[in-house]
């Protein structure tokens, strides 16, 4: 028995006094092998460690599908984990892994100047453009727009029903900030394509074309379906954090509602924006999950490029230099 570093505690010479477990999950090794077989992982990235290899593969895949464009407008991160939720400690299915994407912060665009531009071309163009944009984004991530803001204000009003002094409460004026054109019926796709060809204003034509492209890209792949087990594991979660806030004007009612609403968004764990279940040894399952991730990335990258075309969005959206 040798002399310990602390006088009162003897230790056995040559015997480790502490073990740290850094074991590699067999599912991770299986996934790494399947990704290599599929050609998604690059063997050149292999340095002997499975976690690093998977991380490099994920980064490579996201870069391949537009990470540079995505970063211009969105702030998201992707993880491979053993649970559908972020903080789950028990494996709900020991045979699966989960590929999740979550928002770190919401991007921000003010779409009022676009509405002004498009209504000059055709009164139904603003709402048509808006529905294409929100519809495409909503297929893959959560946008926060005037519909969310209206629902939230409605809920707050219900909460104070029956209170003695309801006038003491002030609510964001969401109704008042919605342009009249947004209440019109959108054009169907065929009418929109016919109209687009005849638009003389270059900026308006580019915007509509970009929205049609975005709609198409967002539909190329279907978002993954979630199993009943995963759905149950996320049952007590809040909705996903919004990936983007779409308002009409800087500091309008939508922004005010979002600011208030966002105070409670992290009170309980939010659902991931995107979740794909993976059976690591099953090539079809892995391929499907990574194709879905590519669909998400390409939709967000296309949306990000569209957003750079929005007139006045940068001035409206970032005049105080902050992001949401």
């Amino acid at each position: 028995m040798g002399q310990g570093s602390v006088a009162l505690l003897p230790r056995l010479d040559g015997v480790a006094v502490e073990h740290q477990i850094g074991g590699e999950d067999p599912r991770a090794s299986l996934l790494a092998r399947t990704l290599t077989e599929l050609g998604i992982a690059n063997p050149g990235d292999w340095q002997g460690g499975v976690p690093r290899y998977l991380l490099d593969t994920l980064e490579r895949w996201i870069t391949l599908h537009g990470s540079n464009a995505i970063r211009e407008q969105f702030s998201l991160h992707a993880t491979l984990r053993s649970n559908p939720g972020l903080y789950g400690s028990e494996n709900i299915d020991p045979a699966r892994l989960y590929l999740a994407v979550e928002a770190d912060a919401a991007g921000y665009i003010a779409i009022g100047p676009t509405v002004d531009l498009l209504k000059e071309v055709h009164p139904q163009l603003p709402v048509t453009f808006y529905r294409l944009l929100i519809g495409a984004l909503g297929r893959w991530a959560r946008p926060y727009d005037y519909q969310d803001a209206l629902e939230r204000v409605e809920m707050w009003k219900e909460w104070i029903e029956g209170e003695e002094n309801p006038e003491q409460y002030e609510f964001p004026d969401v109704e008042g900030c919605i342009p009249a054109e947004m209440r019109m019926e959108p054009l169907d796709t065929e009418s929109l394509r016919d109209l687009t060809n005849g638009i003389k204003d270059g900026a308006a034509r580019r915007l509509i074309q970009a929205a049609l492209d975005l709609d198409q890209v967002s539909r190329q792949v279907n978002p993954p379906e979630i199993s009943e087990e995963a759905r149950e594991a996320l049952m007590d979660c809040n909705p996903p954090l919004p990936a983007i806030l779409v308002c009409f004007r800087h500091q309008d009612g939508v922004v005010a509602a979002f600011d208030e609403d966002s105070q409670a968004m992290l009170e309980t764990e939010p659902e991931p924006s995107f979740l794909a279940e993976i059976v690591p040894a099953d090539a079809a399952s892995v391929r499907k999950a990574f194709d879905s991730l590519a669909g998400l990335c390409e939709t967000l990258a296309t949306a990000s490029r569209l957003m750079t075309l929005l007139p006045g969005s940068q001035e409206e959206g970032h005049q105080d230099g902050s992001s949401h």
Partner: protein
Amino acid sequence: MRTPTICTRREAVLDELTQLIEGRHPRCQTIIARFLRDPEFQQASELLAKAIEEEQRRRRSAVINLPPGWLLPV
């Protein structure tokens, strides 16, 4: 057409990953890795830990002399 080097590299990586999956990789032979993979090892360790704990508890106990007139338990 893929070059032989790339094929060799890919095959080497796949081989190493297969060894990891099947527990044949040298990294899987450490005592901790074996413990993590083997439920019987885990169960045996748990039984041994309980036995040591029980033995320590038994050693700490003192033998008390029976009061006069008491019979030993049957």
